[in-house]
């Protein structure tokens, strides 16, 4: 499953570790939510980047106290129609100020890319290789938006007011 970051297919630096597997030293790891919460103090003290795989039916507020110690949060799309992680992403970015890597995992397809970027994701485990190859193009499908969002796009309403202020018709 190709990983896309900064618009490019890149190798994954992170290693997923399960509930009972030993955690390797000095290697970036992604641990399951429960394991993280049960051993948070030990895990954040360890040498090496730490990521948490967070399920989409658990409040991200639980992660809030630890966010400063996390390099990555992996959110889940069990089916691409299941959009709970979009809300989690915006909460993490906008309410809790998470500045690390926000990774979309699961059923991640081409036609979601621009929604994902705008919700605050910046790392994508893409299910189909062909989709990964057109990532840069797919996130440019729309150039006009009605909402402010994580990709920095200026909503149409603000652009209209700027245009009016500048005296354009």
């Amino acid at each position, binding site marked *: 499953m190709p990983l896309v970051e900064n618009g490019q297919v890149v190798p994954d630096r992170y290693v997923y570790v399960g509930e009972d597997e030993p955690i390797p030293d000095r290697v970036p790891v992604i641990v399951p939510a429960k394991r993280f919460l049960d051993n948070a103090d030990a895990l954040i003290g360890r040498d090496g980047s730490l990521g948490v795989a967070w399920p989409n039916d658990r*409040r991200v507020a639980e992660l809030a106290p630890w966010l400063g110690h996390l390099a990555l949060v992996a959110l889940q799309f069990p089916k*691409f*129609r*299941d*959009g*709970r992680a*979009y*809300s*989690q*992403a*915006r*909460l993490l970015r*906008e*309410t809790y100020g998470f500045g690390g890597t926000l990774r979309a995992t699961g059923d991640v*397809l081409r*036609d*979601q890319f*621009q*929604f*994902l970027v*705008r*919700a605050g994701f910046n790392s994508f485990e893409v299910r189909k290789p*062909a989709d990964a190859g057109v990532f840069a193009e797919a996130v440019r*499908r*729309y*150039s*006009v*938006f*009605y*909402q*402010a*969002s*994580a990709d920095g796009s200026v909503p*149409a*309403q603000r*652009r*209209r*007011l700027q245009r*009016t202020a500048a005296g354009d018709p």
Partner: protein
Amino acid sequence: MYVYDAFDRKLVTERVNDFRDQVARRLSGELTEEEFKPLRLMNGVYLQLHAYMLRIAIPYGTLSSLQLRQLARVARKYDRGYGHFTTRQNIQFHWIKLAELPDAMAELASVGMHGMQTSGNNVRNITTDQWAGVAPDEIADPRIWAELIRQHVTLHPEFSFMPRKFKIAVGASHHDRAALRIHDLALRLHRNAAGETGFEVMVGGGLGRTPYLALTIKPFLPTRDVLSYVEAVLRTYNQFGRRDNIWKARIKILVHDLGAETFAKEVDTEWQSIKDGALALDRAVVTEIAGRFRYPAYEKLDDSPKELAQARHDDRRFDAWVKNCVTNHKVPGYAIVTLSLKPEGGTPGDATAAQMDEIAGLADRYSFGEIRVGHEQNLVLPHIAQRDLPALWRALDAIGLALPNVNSITDIISCPGLDYCSLANARSIPIAQEITRRFRDLDTQRELGRLHINISGCINACGHHHVGHIGILGVEKNGEEFYQITLGGKADENATLGTLIGPAVPFAQVADVVEDIAAAYLALRQRPDELFIDTVKRTGIEPFRERVYAAR
């Protein structure tokens, strides 16, 4: 009219290009039907029994004559020469080919129309009062708020993959003409004791398998907070609405499972954290949107001109039409005219391409080029000078659109039913057609007075049968079409769900049952002006039940 600017036009064009690419990938097999389905649904494309169906939004029910002509063109070129106006201020074309869909959409985009979010698990077309901007009893034009919300939820990065569809309605009058309480979220603009305007916020309404009326969770929301509050409701729903069972996925289930108070608390907590952020509306934004609604340059005219009184005196048919189809306008000397799309033996809500062109022409001549679509599946010419009413009537009469049956027993709201829809269990249209034949006599219709029949061909309730004065629901029993009858529902400011009167009856008996109910009403009412719905309320359903089942 709301006038699209370059931003709106660009977005609609980009949407067509996006969909063209998706269709190409589907046709090449790159996308499976399962993957394609939610994508086409987001563009209003359903796969029905015979063909693809395209549903086009008519935001807040307002159409220009140019747009209506384009709908006529699409009906001719890509469909079979007609379109179907729905209960949610949309129009559907039922016979479109997948490969031609992007071209049809591009033609619609050229006049600012689209099918974005007319289906799928996102925020649907925002509906409102079809008399918005012209109704004498409104406190402000609700379409400005509907448009602000429409823009905010269009291709929203967070709310495009929700548990289920989400329907929003906005009203601004005491009389509710937008069926607010049957919506997932409804906003009613009103004034508080201090004279400020704000919204009553209602959530959790919806019909279908588990009908509920929306509950008020916030009696007064300042208008500046409307986007942040809608965002908080949607965020709460997106995270906590059920996704394990399609029948329990609407927000109404979440609201009623949690209880309105707990739900409101959850929303409020979220809202507090965002209300003073980017979504707080400042006056400049509202003013900018309001400024793009263009109102006609009305003439200074007097109410009730002499020529109108004379024409009503001279022609009984014209007088009957005025009484039935013409309503007060907020500007003196003007009137609101309803065009019934419910001819005898017709399909409720259908209009032919020729009719659409004729209506567009009449709108240009008499209604400042504007047409409205209401949830009752009729059309409205919203700005008619009263002195023009006789001429307009003659023109409408000549094309069969001056039927004085608005709000009568033949003004039936109906879904397409099993004649088109793959979800339906039973036919709706032939039931409606037979009822219009049985009650074809206009004097009988007038005698019965205001009486709403709503027909749905399945439990999804697209015909809103729960809120019909007489509700008819098609069900399937051992491979045959049967119909459950409810009485006493209504969708206005005193919204009520109807009560089932007894066992379902077979297809062939439905019109007989309606005749029995009508006869029972005439016998039961205390005065000629006691409306059907008031009689049902006073007597309950028992005497109707007796009458219907005595001989069955």
